[in-house]
């Protein structure tokens, strides 16, 4: 697969009052592929926004380099390929939503007709069509967030950089944005997003990077995290033989009983032997086997606490 965003040894040092140096980003190396949804995680002040500001040209790197869509060196070419949604976006509030989208479309040298048709489509998709002629200052936080998504989609970019895309959205808005991102993924677009909502990362992202105090501490695919993260299984039995019950006493733990069924938790390492025993037993009937995973929240906690 082709590389969409390549970051090499990127670093940023801020110089504060009295010349105090703050190393906000340390030697970041990252490669994000086309068609990939990458989740960038980290506690507050970890360096997520600094990385995004570097990628969008708002600040300049102290060391290292990056390329977007293979355009080495030219920031303007990088910008043309990217749709960017800032964190807590704020747009010229005296313009209407429609006018703002027209302004953004013009900066990407889009033709008048395509600006109009794309604006219509996106405003309808994001449930803003009724408010399109109202000044942005009259929009709610969620509406501004959805307008932010519309403005970064208007030129149908290959790469999207979304800083906290779910921020300020109600549950329906979150579902809408999640579906839009999944649709972009299906269309082979690259999405680089930072968020604090771990569930969204699990559902949307292909890979996740966890950054702590300016350092990338963990990089793994969601699939690997989910597979590797299986701690054990919850097994629901319709009926059990005494032999299997004895076995479960040593390898499992009873976690409940309901409507004539019994639930047990069995650790990952004991599962195979238990299943071998249950399969030879004619009395024992298994209704359901459910994997119990170590969630992304546990991994996040582990990485950020430095375990």
């Amino acid at each position, binding site marked *: 697969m082709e590389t969409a965003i390549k970051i090499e040894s990127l670093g940023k040092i801020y110089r504060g009052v009295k010349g105090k140096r703050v190393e906000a980003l340390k030697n970041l190396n990252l490669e994000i592929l086309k068609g990939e949804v990458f989740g960038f995680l980290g506690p507050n002040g970890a360096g997520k926004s600094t990385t995004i500001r570097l990628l*969008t*040209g708002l600040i300049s790197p102290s060391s290292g380099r990056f390329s977007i869509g293979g355009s080495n060196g030219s920031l303007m070419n990088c*910008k043309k390929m990217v749709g960017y949604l800032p964190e807590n*976006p*704020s747009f010229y509030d*005296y313009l209407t939503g429609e006018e703002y989208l027209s302004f953004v479309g013009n900066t990407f040298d889009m033709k008048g007709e395509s600006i109009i048709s794309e604006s219509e489509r996106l405003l309808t998709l994001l449930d803003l069509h009724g408010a399109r002629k109202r000044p942005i200052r009259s929009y709610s936080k969620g509406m501004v967030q959805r307008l932010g998504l519309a403005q970064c989609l208007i030129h149908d970019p290959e790469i999207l950089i979304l800083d906290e895309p779910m921020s300020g959205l109600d549950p329906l808005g979150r579902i809408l944005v999640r579906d839009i991102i999944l649709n972009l993924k299906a269309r082979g677009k690259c999405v680089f997003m930072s968020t604090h909502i771990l569930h969204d990362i699990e559902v949307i992202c292909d890979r996740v990077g966890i950054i702590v105090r300016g350092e990338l501490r963990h990089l793994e695919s969601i699939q690997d995290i989910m597979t590797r993260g299986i701690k054990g299984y919850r097994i629901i039995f319709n009926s059990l033989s005494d032999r299997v019950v004895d076995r479960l006493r040593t390898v499992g733990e009873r976690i409940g009983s309901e409507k004539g069924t019994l639930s047990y938790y069995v650790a990952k390492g004991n599962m195979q032997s238990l299943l071998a025993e249950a399969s030879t037993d004619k009395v024992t009937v298994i209704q359901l086997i459910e994997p119990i995973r170590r969630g992304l929240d546990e991994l996040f906690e582990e990485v950020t606490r430095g375990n």
Partner: protein
Amino acid sequence: MLRCRNLFPNQAFGIAKVTLTGGRRDKVFITLIFISVISFLAVIPAASSLSMRQVREVAVNLSLSTISFVSLVLTVFFGVHLIYRDMEQRFVHAVLPLPISRGSYLIGKFLGLSAILAIGLTILSLFSSIGILIASATYKSQIPMLWENYVAAVFFEYLELLILASFAVFFSSFSTTVFLPLFSTVSVYIIGNVTQSVAEYIASPYGQKLPRFSIYISKAVYYIFPNLTAFDLKAKAIYSLRMSFSDLSFIFLYAVLYILIILSASLLVFRRREIA
């Protein structure tokens, strides 16, 4: 000097258009223009008639002074907020990641402000002309009214404001507060209006008696800051005095050159600014 190929004119015009839209919809702009129009149509003709024999001359004087004051307020108000507001309200976080260079952004902002001032001055000039015609009808002046002088006075007032606007952009390009651009721009206006008089005093026998250090400082200030008195053509418009085309051309070129230098300096500073 500005490198035009780096400015992406389309993007600069996009920013200018948005800035102009913001200006047109601003309550300060609408209110100031509305109050000025009322004063041109009612207050100035009435006040001028009190002067008995110089009604038209006083009307022209009052009109040009009102235009100067209102447009100065507009320039300072919009000029200092031009970039500061975008920074403060985080509009730049959404705009600068678009394919807009910092140069296009800055030039676009300046062009937008220039357009706001041009619209403001055009409205003020039109209504002040009606006011002058009303005042002239009450008492016939012995001096013929030269409207081209009036237009020239307003136009050179506009050039003066553009110089001030470029200073406002320059101070805003690095300032993190609104106060620095505000006080600095007002200071440039005050200094620019007194340097000519100071230079003339220094050149006089009295001035030569001043300490050498003061003379050097005064001369430095005279050459560094713009000479805004050159743009004041009020007397020529009031008394319909002849204007020299070569003088006007020289003042025009002086303004253009000054604006280009200040905008180039703004661009150099703004390119390095970190938008955190």
